[in-house]
């Protein structure tokens, strides 16, 4: 689906970003990953790696210099801080909004002029940008920012580029494993969480990558400015405990 397309995936060290990069490669794309720090030891040779911090304008500008043209930009880099508003520090704000909000803005500003006509920008939003996960105030808000920016870019920069967002639900990455590990009853917590998924399982990075591949491909050439929720049906159901009825 993506033969000869040039793609950049931010936050490609692990999890969803790595899953998207692997799928893009299988579809024939030439994929560069970027993240803070050195190239991951386990990253296969067919991927390029550029160390870059998306929250820093000069680093993003330098990253962009390396691309004459780009077909697909995936803004996946993001962090999560588990705090409510009143115990969130200024440093938390700078760190989280720097990566999740400013980072998306900076990469879009730098790369939109370098994208081929009809190129695809794919932002990773979240179901938490639509409804609130408790104790994740800035994370939730940063993802709502991503959703809003997605629409603005689609409106302002179409038809030159398309821009859509994917809103993942519970994808089994390190973040989710950590959440179950600290539960009072990890097994019961996992069973309860599973029961809330009509799909009967948690998501995998490959599930998000499947949507990303479609949005990156010419199959979606009329698709722009939209949010695509991929959550195994989680947010289609009422928040009531499924064991109650």
């Amino acid at each position, binding site marked *: 689906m993506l033969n000869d397309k040039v793609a950049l995936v931010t936050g490609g060290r692990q999890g969803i970003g790595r899953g998207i990069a692997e799928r893009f490669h299988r579809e024939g794309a030439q994929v560069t990953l970027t993240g803070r720090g050195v190239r991951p030891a386990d990253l296969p040779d067919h991927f390029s790696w550029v160390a870059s911090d998306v929250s820093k304008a000069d680093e993003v500008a330098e990253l962009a210099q390396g691309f004459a043209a780009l077909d697909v930009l995936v803004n996946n880099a993001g962090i999560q801080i588990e705090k409510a508003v009143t115990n969130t520090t200024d440093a938390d704000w700078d760190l989280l909004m720097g990566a999740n909000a400013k980072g998306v803005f900076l990469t879009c500003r730098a790369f939109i002029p370098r994208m081929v006509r009809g190129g695809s920008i794919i932002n990773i939003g979240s179901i938490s940008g639509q409804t609130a*996960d*408790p104790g994740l105030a800035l994370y939730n808000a940063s993802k709502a920012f991503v959703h809003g920016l997605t629409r603005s870019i689609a409106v302002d920069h179409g038809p030159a580029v398309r821009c859509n967002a994917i809103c993942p639900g519970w994808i089994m990455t390190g973040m989710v494993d950590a*959440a179950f590990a600290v539960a*009072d009853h990890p097994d019961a917590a996992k069973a309860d969480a599973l029961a809330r998924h009509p799909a009967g399982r948690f998501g995998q990075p490959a599930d998000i990558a499947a949507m990303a591949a479609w949005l990156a491909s010419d199959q979606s050439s009329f698709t722009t400015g939209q949010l695509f929720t991929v959550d195994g049906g989680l947010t289609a*159901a009422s*928040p009531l405990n499924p064991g109650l009825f």
Partner: protein
Amino acid sequence: MMLTGKTALVTGGRGGIGRAICDRFKREGARVFAADLTPAGSLNTDQSPDDFIRLDVTSEDSVRAAFDYVAGSAPDGKLDILVNAAGIEIEKTIEETSLEEWNRIFAVNVTGTFLVSKFALPLLRKSKASGGASVINFGSYDGFLADPGLAAYCATKGAVHALTRAMACDHGPEGIRVNAICPGYVDTPMLQSFFEGDGSGGDGGTIDSLQQAVRDVHPMRTFGRPEDMANLVNWLASDEARYAAGQLWVLDGGLSAQVQQMKL
């Protein structure tokens, strides 16, 4: 008093939420017609027969007769407020739902809203000179999010949401505002029947413990009361809401603002 000089008709007007709306409208100075299948309604208690209209919202003849009566007895034959609160619930999946049940719930919840609104239009238009009319439909948070085992009910409420926006587009220029309120869990005979239908609940508790568990999922930790619904309906009916049109007003104690509450 927010509704002085206005005339209102409330379908399901002797049921749990409808009756609270009628009571509130009267206190706000409106002339109120309570329309329902029986004077006792789903609360099954008597109330003074003043301005009761026997109405089957699924019957075109019944709806026509009701508005003939209102046209003849309301001041200037004018209607300012219509509340489509009549509704039923069927607690089944689509596999368990018979075609007859499916047609029945659509007849009450969707066709009823259509028919009553259609025959109310000539009376509602007469309100334009005095500030305009307000129609308030009953959607549900179930029109946005699915509760298990309520398939047809969820579908009817989604239909009411779309109909609300369509009516607002078509009839806004005639001075008729159309909105829907979308209740979550409200303490009514319908909710009690829902809990009783589920017996002990999935984890072997009593109805009381089931109800408490459901309350605890709400950010406000309680169900709504019919009076809470009447507070918003009253505002939407009043001239305070003169710029509110075509919207779906969710009133659910914060239930649907959350993502799933995992037991972590």
